[in-house]
């Protein structure tokens, strides 16, 4: 799949889902964590994702 294909799928999806810019970033970041965890056993993806979500939500940090 070409980069253009991937880019098109992602932008169409983000638009359809209604992600904000920050949500897009968090979503991609979460997927990157899962991706890294495939090579690194020490990464616990659910815990890492929960952490970045909590770091980026809440008061003065709405996504």
């Amino acid at each position, binding site marked *: *799949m070409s*980069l253009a*294909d*991937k880019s098109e*799928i*992602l932008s*169409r*999806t*983000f638009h*359809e*889902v*209604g*992600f904000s810019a920050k*949500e897009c970033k*968090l*979503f991609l970041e*979460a*997927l*990157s964590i*899962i*991706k890294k965890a*495939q*090579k690194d*056993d020490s990464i616990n*993806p*659910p*815990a890492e*994702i*929960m952490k970045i*979500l*909590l770091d980026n*939500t*809440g*008061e003065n940090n*709405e*996504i």
Partner: protein
Amino acid sequence: MKFRRIKFNNFRCFKNEELIFNESSDKNINLILGPNGAGKTELLFAFRWILSNNVDFTKLLGKEKTPYSLNSSLYNDLKNGLSAKASCSVELELESTQDDSENRVMILKKTDIYTSNPPNTPTKDTELELSYLNDDGSKSLPEKDPVKINEKINSIIPSSILYGIAFDGERMQQLSSPQDTSKRAIEGLIANITSVEFLTKCKNCFESVQMDNEEQYKKIAKSTKNKTLETITNDLKKAEDKKKELGNKQTELKEKYENNTLELTTLSNFLKEKEETQVYQKEKELFTKELKTWKNSLIDLTAGYATALSKAYLRAGIPLYDRALSSINKMAVPRGLTTEAVKNIIKSGKCICGKEIDSSVLSTLEDLLSKVPPTNLNSTIEQMAGDLKTSAETNRKSSWNSSKQITTAESEIKEKENRIAFLTSQIGSIDQEKIKEANERFSILTKEQGKLEADKESYSETLENLEHTIEVLEKQRETAATHNGQLQQLQEVRDFLKKSFYALDLISDSSKERALQILNVKLKEAFSELSSDVALGRRIALIQGKGIHEQYQIISYLQSKFDSELARIQNNQKYFTLSDKEKEERAIINVAEGNSTGQSKMNTLAFVKAILDYANSQKDDNFLGQAKCFPLLIDAPFGDIFEDNLIQSAKKLHEFSDQIILFLAQDSYDSVKKYIGSYVNTTYELHKKPNEPYSIIIKKDDK
């Protein structure tokens, strides 16, 4: 990923053998030559055995007489009770092409087989070890946890990929069959080389995050009865507003109650007066009755008085007068005659004149003497007059009393008449209509007061409950205020995850659809490159079935048949609702052809080339396509393929992957050597040792 080395120890037909794989950019084929029965398939199965558990050696009993990975000779020794234990192992070294510090991995799989009772049913004990190899050749401490090892192996070369890179002739034939196992194999393969498998992992991971988030949310929400601060604040405001409203209503009710009480008092007084009137009425009736009695009494008294008067005169005068007059007249009694003289006359029987007196006169005289005082008649008359006087006096007194009573009665009558007149005037002054109205109003007000009393009680109770609710809500608000930030944050995470699940589904669907399009293009390209049948109108397509499983299937068909079937479908109203793509897919399914062995192999070769092209084309390593370079292990791919198809397939084989491990019989190799030979880097020859259950592997310098 590339295989670097494989080493056997008593594995099937290999006693102690080792193969090292090398390739360069222009020589990427590792050739393993051997006649039938020398162990080519056993060698291929060794890769599958160490990389997945899904190997059934009983299917290879026709090649080696052992149902295990263990060498058949050792197995027979065990079975025959000649030994108690035997071991076999395979050591595989592979190199990950990913940018990974731990890119060289060595996997050791070892099986110990023990005799048991009975000895023909041995038990086995399998161990796995995984070590990382350093540049200097040293090894890390081995990982022995089978779960972790399998996870690692799966991350390097998933079992689904083995279906696409490790082929013996039989599997090549099966892959393009319409069997469910083949469809599932293709499904797994495509899921792996596209992003679908990764996206499924992402979904599972997001589900774990969601569970964690929900758990935290519930824990916090439990302390505020699952209410947010906003909800609690709203509830509290509502409760306070209601309390205020009830308070106002209660005040209104109180005022109304007081007004009613006042009106009731007024009415009560008014009606009390009405009760007095009734007393007046009764009194008037009594007086009227008494008046009547008195009047009757007056009539009786007046009549009595008149009677008494007349009786007095009659009693005293008339009888006496009548008797005296009769006696005098009858007897010519001289006046002044005393009683003594009368007595003497009666005694002598002769009048004072001497004349005889008859007996009747004498009897009258005797009677007279008995009734008058003995002195003389005058005194008798005086006596009688006295009696009359006394009687008259008595009657006069009686008459006087009667007269007095009459006066009293008249006075009473007068008094009663006056009282009756007063009472009549009092009764007449009260308006009966007003009394009726007052009574009705009194009744209404009394009922209303009852209701107001009940309402007052109800309001008090409700207010009490409200006060309690407010108290609870205030406490909840206090707690919620503390947790609100956390809840809000967790809610944001929840919303984000919800969107993320949707996004993953969309990406997965879009990726699958796009991947299928690309794979179909690559499949057609590969088929055109490999098969001369394209010129004859033969085509190939990868179709994704509809329904729950959505399994993929490789279908070959003839263009001409497809064209007419597509035209038929397009003109058939039954298919109007289908999209053009769906119509094409249906037409392909309808004209699918059964495959010969050679055709199946061609289909599989085209498919394998397509998926390896697809996987190897992922240059960037992100979540929508991993940079996956897989080797190809293929046993006797050219059997049953002839002429141009054979030539084209052989010519293109080196383009399939950066590393190809090709298993061929010598004669088969000879037929394609001029197309393949220049791409062969390393050649190994397998030789079956005569009269021994072992094969040996000899490296041949093909250069």
